[in-house]
C-alpha cells in the first residue's frame, strides 16, 4: 500500500485546467465535435431555484439506450484528471438523493417507464441533462416503435450536451450550467449558452458570490495536462 501512495505522490497533481475559450489545451482533452453544453430556453439553473444548493450537488445517471461511449465519458469526470468532486458534484445511486439526472440515449421503449419513475421520485428542485446527440435530438435513432428519438419526446430537458459522445469537459460544462455555477471563459464574453442566461446567473448569486466567482469557478488549478508534470 505504501508503494501505491509513493507512486501517487511522485506523479503530483495531474488535474486538467478548465480550458479558456480558444485555448490550445482543448485539442488534447476534447474532440473535434462540440465541446460545450446549452441551457434549454426558459430553463432555470438549480442555484436560482434553491439558494443553498451550490456546493453539494448529487448526480444520478440513467442509461436509456446509449451506445456505451457516453457512460465512459461521464465516468471519466470522476477520474483524477477531472475529479469533479472537488467542484461539489457527487455521484449518488439513489434517485431520491439526486439533484441532477444525466440521461443518455434516445430512450428505448423498455426504458421509458424506468426513466419516468426515476424522474418522478427525485425531489425538487431538480435538473435533467440530456447527454449525447441521441439524447439531445433524434440523432442517429429517429423516433419509431423502438425509440422515442430523444429525451425531450418524453420529458422536458434543462441542459443539452451534444456530441457523439460529448467529451468529459462538455459534460462538466453541462453540469455547471444546470447547477448555475460560473463557467470559466464563458462569463460575460457573450459565449454563454443563450444571450440571457449569463446575466441571469450572475444576478442569482447576489453580492456574496461575485467576489469569488473567478477563483472558485476554476475547474482546476493544477498543472496543465499530464505532460507538464
Amino acid at each position, binding site marked *: 500500500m505504501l508503494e501505491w501512495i509513493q507512486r501517487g505522490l511522485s506523479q503530483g497533481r495531474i488535474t486538467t485546467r478548465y480550458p479558456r475559450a480558444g485555448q490550445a489545451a482543448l*485539442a488534447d482533452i476534447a474532440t*473535434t465535435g462540440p465541446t460545450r453544453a446549452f441551457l434549454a430556453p426558459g430553463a432555470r439553473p438549480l442555484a436560482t431555484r434553491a439558494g443553498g444548493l451550490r456546493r453539494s450537488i448529487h448526480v444520478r445517471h440513467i442509461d*436509456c439506450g*446509449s451506445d456505451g461511449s457516453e457512460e*465512459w465519458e461521464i465516468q471519466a469526470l470522476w477520474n483524477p484528471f477531472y475529479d469533479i468532486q472537488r467542484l461539489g458534484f457527487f455521484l449518488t445511486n439513489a434517485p431520491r438523493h439526486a439533484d441532477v439526472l444525466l440521461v443518455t440515449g434516445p430512450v428505448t*421503449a*423498455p426504458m421509458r417507464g424506468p426513466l419516468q419513475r426515476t424522474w418522478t421520485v427525485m425531489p425538487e428542485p431538480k435538473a435533467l441533462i440530456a447527454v449525447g446527440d441521441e439524447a439531445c435530438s433524434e440523432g*442517429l435513432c429517429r423516433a419509431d416503435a423502438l425509440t422515442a428519438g430523444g429525451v425531450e419526446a418524453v420529458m422536458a430537458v434543462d441542459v443539452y450536451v451534444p456530441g*457523439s459522445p460529448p467529451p468529459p469537459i462538455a459534460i462538466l460544462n453541462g453540469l455547471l450550467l444546470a447547477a448555475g455555477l460560473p463557467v470559466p471563459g464563458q462569463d460575460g464574453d457573450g459565449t454563454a449558452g443563450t444571450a440571457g442566461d449569463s446575466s441571469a446567473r450572475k444576478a442569482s448569486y447576489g453580492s456574496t458570490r461575485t467576489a469569488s466567482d473567478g477563483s472558485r469557478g476554476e475547474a482546476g488549478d493544477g498543472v496543465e495536462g499530464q505532460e507538464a508534470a
Partner: protein
Amino acid sequence: MSVVQQPARATTGYPPERLGAIPEPAPAGEVRLRVGALALASSARAMHEAGARFVTVFLADTPERSLIAAFALRGELILLRVPASGDAVCESIGAWWPAARWAERELAELHGIQFSGEDRYAARLTAPDPDSVERQVSGLDVFSIPYGPVRSGIFEAIQFHIETGGEDVPRIHTRPFFKRRGMEDRFVGLGPEAGVRVAERVAGIASCAYAACFAQAVERAVGVQAPRRAERWRAVYCELERMACHLDVIAKQAETTALYVGQARFQILKEQVMRLRSRLTGSRFARGMIVAGGVRGEGTMDLDELLAALDRIERDLRRDRRMFLGTASMTDRLIGSGRLPRALVEEYGAVGPLARGSGLSTDARHERPYGNYTRLGLRVVSERDTDAMARVRVRFGELSESLRILRQTVDHLRRRDGELRTELPAAGEGAACGWVEAPQGELVMWVELREGLLRRVNIASPSLRNWALFDHAFPKDVLTDFAFIEHSFGLTPAGADR
C-alpha cells in the same frame, strides 16, 4: 462445382457430401454451403462433432431469402444456408448449440421464423418488461432481486434476476435488450460511407472494431482490398481501442475490490490512451477515421511523438501492473471467483478475453488473420485458471501485446509511404462476412450490398454471445462477488442489444 473458389477438402471433417450440402462461391476465408431445409439440424450436429464453434444464426436476402448458420472451424467461417420458404418451420439447433437459443428467439420474435422444438417463453427476450420477475428457485428465505435496468453507478442498462437466500446464488438470469435501438435496420438503404458511421455507434466503446469489421465486410462483398497503409492505420486504431477497453475493465475491477488507489492509477492510464487517440484522430474514440476501402487520412500526430507517448504509457503500465498484481487484498478476491470451466465456455461458443481466460485460444486475429494481422506474429494470451483473476491476467498480457503490435506497426508506417484508400465500385453488389477481434471478443458482420446501397446488415456481437454464460458464472460464489464477476466479463450491453 467449377465456381467454387475454395475446394472442399476431405480432411476438414465437414465434407459437403456428408452434410448433403452444395458448395457455393464465397470470398476467401468463407465456406458457403447450401443445405436442405430438413438437414440444418443434422448439419449443425456434424459441425458439433467436427469441433466447430457456433457463431450466429441470422436471416439473409442474398442470393435469396434464407437462414444462415455460421460456424468457425479451422481458420474458416462456415456458413450453412437454408433457403427459407414461406412460413415453414425450421429445425432448432439449440439442442446442439445452447448459444443458438438466444439467436433463435431473436429471429422468432423479430422475424416470425418458427423453430421446432424451441422452448416456449412467456416473456419476450427482445422487448423486456422491467417489472416482470420470474422465479424458478423455491425454498425457505429464497428471494429474487431484480437488479437493473437502472443500475447503481454509471453503467449501461441491463437487468439481472438474482435468486438468492442471502449469500449463495442458486440462479442468475440475465435479461439483455433493454437498449435495443434496431441498429441493424438503420443501415438499410445507406451507402457504405454512411454505414461506417452507423457501425461506429452500435457499440461506442468498440467504435473502431465495429467500423473496421463493417468496412472489411463491404470490401469483401464488392471484391476490393484496402491498401496496406490503411490496414496498418486500422490496426493502430483498433489496438489503442483494445488498450482503452482493457484498462477500463481493470480499473473497474480495482473499484469493485475497493482498491480505489489502484482504480485511480488505471483510470489515469485509460485517460492517457483516450487523449492519445484524441491527438491522433481528433476524436477520443477515434471515430471518423475508418472508411470503407481504407482510412480517411493519416493520423494528425508525429509518429515519433506517438512512439514516445506509447513508451511513457508502457513505463507507467509496467509499474502499476506490478503493484496491482502484488496487492493481496485485491487478488484474493479475484482468485477462484467466477470460475467458467473450459467445457462450458466451448459449449456456449464464448469468445474474447473470457474464453482465453478459460484456456481457449480463440482470437479472430489468429484464427482468420485479416488486414495487418496477416503480416504480424501475434502472441495469443491464454490462461488456464478459468477464474476472474485469469481474465485480468489475460487483459494484462494483451495490453503488452497491443503495445508491441502498435510499436511494430507505427515503425512500418514511419518507414514506408503508400496509398490510404481504394475506391469502391459505384454500384457494387454482393454479400460477405467481415470479422475482427473486438476488445470484447470476436465480432462478425454479414453485409449485403445491392446497387451500391446496403440491403441488410447482421451483427454477431461478442457481448451477446458471452452474456449467455453469465447465468453460469456463480458456481461457488456469493452475492457480494457479483460486481467483480460482472466486470471481469468486460462486455457492453449496447453491442449485445444493438
